[in-house]
Structure formats: structure tokens, C-alpha cells
């Protein structure tokens, strides 16, 4: 089974984010990027399948500052191939990213595409769904716990209200991964360094795809910061009584 994991790099949210002078996007000159957390889960789940059933795992990412590190780390964790997609604008939307990745994936011999269900840079959950649309294959999103039996995959999909549904699907399919069955593994730095020395990343040049994204950002701004909490002091009973009182007032 060939699994392709397209991963997104997103701005590291631990850093302060600045808005550009136009007020339409982040000031990208000094941004540091890291792997989107959900995509890290997609890699983990793909590696779990590889270990349990045997599979070849290919990780692909669009070139950003930290892409090499992310791809080498994926190889160090156990991925078989890593492909860097170049030529795509840094401020690319999910639509353009999906189109570029589709161009690369369509030329591959793949069975399953596993990607993070959503990303911090859009939170709109479209990458997997758009990819599936462009590739012309079905998609199951918000998925966890993928298992393989012969040619069939069983996936668990979360429904509203804490319900879980079990799907049986057959390749080719795109899965939007919500959570891997375990916390994404850690690759020791020494192993990543070793891989960097021994391996060269594959590169594929894809120009900016001409995609109508359907919407434009008119304005981006940082939300007002709150003033911080009013701190309540005293014995637990006193504090509890005051909170209960306050809540009662707010409720009515």
C-alpha cells in the first residue's frame, strides 16, 4: 500500500505574529514555520499503518523556511520518501496549495492520501477535501484510528455530539486525519542529522497554480487583548461563594 502524506507548514504560533502594512496578511519576512500539528498526526498514523501492515510512506511539503528540516525529520521517523514542492508563493492559500500538491500526487502511484484535517493558518479544513476534489477520489475527513485489512481500510470518523462512526473504504481515498492513535513520535536529532548527511530530498517544481480561491481577505488585524483576570483572594469557601454569586448575576 502506498500512502502519501502532504503536510503543511504553518507559522509558529509561539512567536509574536505581525500584520503587514496593508493589513491583509502576516508580515512574512521574519516568520518562522513549523509543521502543522494535524499533519504531524497524519504522518504518525501513516507510520503506524506501515509498521502494522507494511506500506510505503511518502511525505510531501511545499517549500518554506523549515521544509527541509520537516522532511528530514519525517524520514528519520520512518518515512520512505520525502518530496519538496518548489515554486509556490509563500502566501499561497489552501486552494493553491491543494492544487500544487495535487499536481505532484496525481503523478504518483498512490493508494491513500492522509493529510491533517485542518491547519492553524486557515482552520477551514479544506486541504484534504480540495485535494480529493482535484484528484477525483472520495474523501473521509475528521478521521482517527485507521486500520487496514487486505484491500480495505477501516476508519473512525467523529460525528457531532461525541458519536463515532466506523467507515470501511477502499483505495483510492483521501483521509483528513484528526488524531493519530498515539502522540506523534519524536525523532532524535542525531538521527535527523545522519539522514541529512546521507539523503538528498527529491524536488518537484510546480509554479503557482492559477486557482480562483472564491474569497479574499479584506483586512487582517490582531484582536484586542483582554485586561487580564480580576484575581479573587481569600479562603476557598469565600472565593467559591463570590464566584457563585457573580455567576448567578451574569446568568440572570
Amino acid at each position, binding site marked *: 500500500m502506498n500512502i502519501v502524506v502532504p503536510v503543511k507548514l504553518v*507559522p509558529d*504560533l*509561539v512567536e509574536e505574529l505581525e*500584520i503587514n502594512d496593508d493589513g491583509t496578511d502576516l508580515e512574512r519576512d521574519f516568520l518562522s514555520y513549523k509543521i502543522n*500539528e494535524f499533519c504531524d*498526526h497524519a504522518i504518525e498514523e501513516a507510520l503506524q499503518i506501515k509498521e502494522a501492515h507494511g506500506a510505503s510512506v511518502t511525505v510531501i511539503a511545499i517549500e518554506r523556511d523549515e521544509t527541509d528540516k520537516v522532511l528530514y525529520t519525517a524520514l528519520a521517523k520512518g518515512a520512505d520518501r520525502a518530496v519538496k514542492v518548489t515554486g509556490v508563493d509563500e502566501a499561497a492559500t489552501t486552494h493553491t496549495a491543494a492544487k500544487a500538491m495535487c499536481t505532484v500526487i496525481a503523478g504518483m502511484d498512490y493508494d491513500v492520501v492522509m493529510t491533517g484535517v*485542518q491547519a*492553524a*493558518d486557515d*482552520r*477551514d*479544513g*479544506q486541504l484534504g*477535501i*480540495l485535494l480529493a*476534489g482535484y484528484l477525483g477520489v*472520495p474523501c473521509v*475527513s*475528521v478521521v*482517527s484510528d485507521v486500520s487496514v485489512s487486505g484491500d480495505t481500510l477501516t476508519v473512525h470518523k*467523529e*460525528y*457531532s*455530539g*461525541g*458519536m*463515532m*462512526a*466506523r*467507515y*470501511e473504504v477502499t483505495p483510492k481515498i483521501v483521509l483528513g486525519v*484528526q*488524531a493519530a492513535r498515539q502522540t506523534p513520535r519524536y525523532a532524535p536529532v542525531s538521527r535527523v542529522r545522519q539522514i541529512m548527511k546521507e539523503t538528498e530530498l527529491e524536488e518537484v517544481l510546480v509554479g503557482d497554480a492559477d486557482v480562483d480561491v*472564491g*474569497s*479574499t*481577505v*479584506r*483586512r*487582517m488585524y*490582531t*484582536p484586542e*487583548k*483582554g485586561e*487580564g*483576570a*480580576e*484575581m479573587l*483572594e481569600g479562603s*476557598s469557601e469565600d*472565593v*467559591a*461563594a463570590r*464566584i*457563585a*454569586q*457573580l*455567576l448567578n448575576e*451574569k*446568568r440572570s
Partner: protein
Amino acid sequence: MSGICVILEQRGGDVKRASIEALAEALRQRSAIGGGVTAILMGSDMATAAEQLKSSGADKIVVFDRGDLAHYSTEGYRSCAVQAIQASGATAVFIAATVQGRDLAPSLAGGAALDAGYAADCTDVEVDGGRVIATRPVYAGKATVKVACNSATFVLSLRPNVFDASLTGGGEAVIESADPPFTEGDVGTHVTSISDDAGGSRDVAEADVVVSGGRGVGGPEGFATIQALAEALDGAVGASRAVVDLGWRPHAEQVGQTGKVVSPKLYVACGISGAIQHLAGMRTSKVIVAVNKDAEAPIFKVADYGIVGDLFEVVPALTEAIGQLED
């Protein structure tokens, strides 16, 4: 081409409050956007639900009522919704940003079906010169964007608990029953089983009150204290990512960037330090109360009320105080 379609989510025939909020917002925007408001209801045995919406203020209710729609499927619900949206000629589609909405909305917009613009998890909607503008938080709430649509249709998912749920009422909606555009049972992928992991407990994303526990709770047994307060407040239990990763609580309860975004009337954070990923999931809550041992915990920056102390003393005291108020 004008008007708004609202895709309603129901469970066992009860329309979710988050969907009522979306419908109420559509009714408020009706004159600005122009055209009518069409509510779309999909499921099995929908007659009562449709009847209840008759006086909601909507102009029309399109009902897809068939056995194979009893449970949600992306393909099945999408085909029905697309058919109804295209028939109505709507320029805006509202849908509640629940787990289901977060799946259905992008597949409506992104697929070849509508080829629409899409804004997820919106906290405000306005109309400027005939164009719909959506406000939505991005980058874990560190930035906010106002997005304008530049295609014929704009799909918006609305964050639950943010929009006022009061329906304008007035008039009587036309109820139109519609046939799904596929043969019964033929929806591409199929569901083999459905289980209720939450054991019938409340969905953290839709609850009015959420009491969340973090690493400070100390272990799975410590959550009995959290649960007790949640019950006293008639709310749901939430969890930080750390405790979900540790296996103390199920993933469905996780609040934050990699879990659910919640916006309840009251959020009580117990033993949660407040990492940016967690704040992303709860900072739009109306009132936030934080209990933490560490006075420097970042959670106190977004909280309205903070208590520095041992949660195993403060939380039971609060549970009791709430109980006394209600007596």
C-alpha cells in the same frame, strides 16, 4: 440569484441550537442580503421537526426525509444540500460550525459542486455594498480576518454559541419535500456502525457551560471533581490537550487548536496553564473563570476571574456554593 440557505443539523429530530443560531442570523441578514431564507433539513422522520420550524420566520423549509439519511454521510448530505442550494439560487449558505458542519461546509464549497468561497468558524457576518463579509479568527486566535466573497456563492460556517438564537418569527414557511439526487442507500462511502463514545453526555462544543481540567487535575480519578462541578452547573466536561495525550480523557472532550473550539456562556479552567493552543479553543467564551496554583499561568491573561489555589479545595467549594444557590 439572491437569498440565504441555512443547513440545519438535527439529532433524532431535534434541531441543534447551533443551527437555530445560524437560522436566526440568516433572518437578521435577510434584508441586507436580499431574497428569502431557505432552511434545509435532512434526515429520517423529519415531519415534526419541519412543522416546528414553520413559524420560525424562514420563507421555505426544504425537507429531505429518507431512511438512508438517518445518519450523516458527507456525500449523501452534500448532494442533497447542493441540489437545494442550486434550486434556491442562494448567494449565501450558513451552517453551524459543529463537527458535522466543519465536515460538510468545506465539502460543499470546495468540491466541484458549488465552487463557492468559504469562510470557516465565523464570529460575525456583515454585508457591505451587497457583498457578504465574514469575520473569523485565524492563527489560534492571534489574528482576525475579514473575508469577502468573490464568487457567486459564499459558504459560511458559524461558531456555535456566538450568534443570538432568537428567531424573528412571523409569516408561515412553505414546507417543500424533496427527493435526494441519488438512489436509496447509494452514497459512495458507507458507514458500518455508529457508537456513542460520549455515553450520551453533552458535546463540549455546544454546551452552555464547560468545566475543563488540565494536567493540574493530577490523574483520571481527579476528574470526578471536575465532573461534579460540571453537573452542578448543568454543563459539559472539557479537557486540555495534555490530559488527552496522557489518556486521562477521550479526544472528543479536547478543547483547543487540535480539539474543539468552544464558546460557552461560562468556561471554568481548572489546573490548565493556558498554552496558546488551548486559548485558541476557548478565548471567545463569555465568562472565563480560572483556577490554578501558579499565579503566572497565562490562562489568567484571558480569564475574567482568577483564583490562585488548589483546585481540589476551590472546585468542591464552588460545587457546593452553586448547589446552595440553587436550593
